[in-house]
């Protein structure tokens, strides 16, 4: 509709954000085309090991230490990696919005308790906390996603709290209350829709962060060994980094480019949402 068209017009103005969007679209297409381009399981051994890129036309990106196709790993890994990033960001957003909304709306005792709770999470180093969580819960894909969500929600909670604190005293909230709305209804239907734009921006950046966290976990060999994420490719290439460095470098570049693209999208969304920049 009109609103979306106007939003797209503002987003389009940021050229870097368009490039970011294009890259992410390519990554998504890669993910969906993987089963057609590489009908075999990406974890299956299909050729000689440590074949460098361009050596064999069947394996344009070479093979890894066990003779698995790196290109297949990249294509299959695209979907897994993005999905991990998106779901982890969603987990972080749900936790962060809930805690931030309650703290910001009710203030007082609620605010104190919830913000001290948030600070406890903020003071623990992220990666160490994530390692501990995954080590305790077990290295399954669900636990990895949950763990990344648990270490990423604090910034969203703080942002949502600040938004709620400024929005809760606005007159339309009082008007809603005078119409007989309950607190929950006010929070969900009146205040949250006004607070959501900056949350979307932050959530898009958390997707990028989550991709990096998953890669870091995989690199250390602590992620789910049964999923073909880009991080796992790096992790398995680590042992051969002195000789066959391309096994690490190729997924590494894929992660770099994707994370950069996600950050560009975040900037573009910020510009598109920010009314002060609208008429620039």
């Amino acid at each position, binding site marked *: 509709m009109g609103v979306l068209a106007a939003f797209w017009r503002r987003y389009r103005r940021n050229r870097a954000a368009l490039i970011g969007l294009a890259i992410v679209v390519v990554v998504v297409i890669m993910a969906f085309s993987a089963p057609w381009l590489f009908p075999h399981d990406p974890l299956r051994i299909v050729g000689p090991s440590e074949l460098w890129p361009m050596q064999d036309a069947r394996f344009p990106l070479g093979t890894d230490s066990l003779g698995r196709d790196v290109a297949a790993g990249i294509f299959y890994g695209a979907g897994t990696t993005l999905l991990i990033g998106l779901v982890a960001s969603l987990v972080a957003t749900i936790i962060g919005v809930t805690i931030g909304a309650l703290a910001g709306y009710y203030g*007082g005792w609620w605010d104190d308790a919830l913000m001290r709770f948030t600070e406890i999470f903020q003071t623990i180093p992220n990666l160490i906390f994530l390692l501990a969580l995954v080590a305790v819960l077990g290295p399954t894909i669900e636990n990895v996603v949950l763990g990344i969500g648990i270490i990423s929600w604090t910034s969203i909670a703080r942002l949502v709290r600040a938004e709620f604190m400024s929005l809760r*005293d*606005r*007159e*339309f909230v*009082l*008007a*809603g*209350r*005078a*119409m*007989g*709305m*309950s607190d929950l*209804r006010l929070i969900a*239907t*009146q205040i949250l*829709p*006004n607070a959501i734009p900056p949350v979307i921006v932050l959530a898009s950046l958390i997707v990028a962060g989550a991709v990096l966290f998953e890669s870091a976990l995989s690199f250390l060999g602590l992620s789910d060994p049964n999923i073909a994420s880009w991080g796992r490719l790096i992790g398995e290439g680590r042992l051969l980094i002195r000789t066959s460095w391309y096994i690490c470098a190729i997924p590494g570049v894929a992660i770099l480019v994707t994370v950069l693209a996600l950050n560009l999208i975040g900037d573009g969304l910020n510009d598109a949402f920010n009314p002060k920049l609208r008429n620039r």
Partner: protein
Amino acid sequence: MAPLLSIRGLTTHLFTDEGVLPAVQDLDLDVIQDRTLALVGESGCGKSMTALSILRLVPDPPARIVGGRVMFEGRDLLTLPEREMRGVRGNDIAMIFQEPMTSLNPVFTVGDQIVEALTIHRNMSPREALDRAVELLELVQIPDPRARVNDYPHRLSGGMRQRVMIAMALACEPKVLIADEPTTALDVTIQAQVLDLLRDLQRRFHMGVILITHDLGVVAEVADRVVVMYAGRKVEEAPVDALFKAPRHPYTVGLLGSTPRPDAAAGRRERLQEIAGMVPSLAEMPTGCAFAPRCPIAMPACAQRPALQPVAADHDVACFAAHEPDHAAAVRS
């Protein structure tokens, strides 16, 4: 006629760092069906706090209702559980606010917001609710309501937005409407239109209206009865004609004197009288009559607080000098 809404001894205090401040003190009001009760006074005299107290919407902290009763249909609203109170707000007693610019949610269309108001208290399908929203917009005389339901608030003028607010307030056909400075933010021609509309809708829905304003022109136009408030207390209450013809409290006299009157002695220009001084801050309230420091006819007795007493049939005043025949003239001179 028995009042729809009967307020007795309403007292709301502000609990601040400087101590407990009385925002509303021992206030009695009666709201009658089909009638408009105007609540008049300067900024900070407790008018809005009274309105918010009736619906139990005072900002807590710092404000808290500490005493009194608000009787509505045999129930005391001040002791009602919050859940039941929500069923009263918007449904039986609705409120419209001063700032039409900020009272509408900027991210929803006008239609969405009226639909929302309808679905709080009524079980309606989205289709029915939208049709009703269009009807309501028509009722508040918004042209082309079918198209306007899809507009966002920022596309509408102040007067249109206030009409939308009125439509939302009337969505559930309340019995009492509290209008807190409904026309203050609008320019004069729009003011008159909105007041006409309110009066029209009042007749149609047989509402009791509490009109909060500092504009005596508005009072003269629409009110049936006037309560003058000063520093959280009622200082004078009378039917509108009696109040304008024979104001008894020096504060009321001052208010009327500071209002331009086109009808007074045509051709002769009179200087507007201002009331000297300022409303005392709630923290520095004199122990006696709160108006005494600004009162031109203050006397030693004013160190005690005068009680509200009848001075004529249906005319109450809280002033020691109210019975003295020519005091009003003394105030004016």
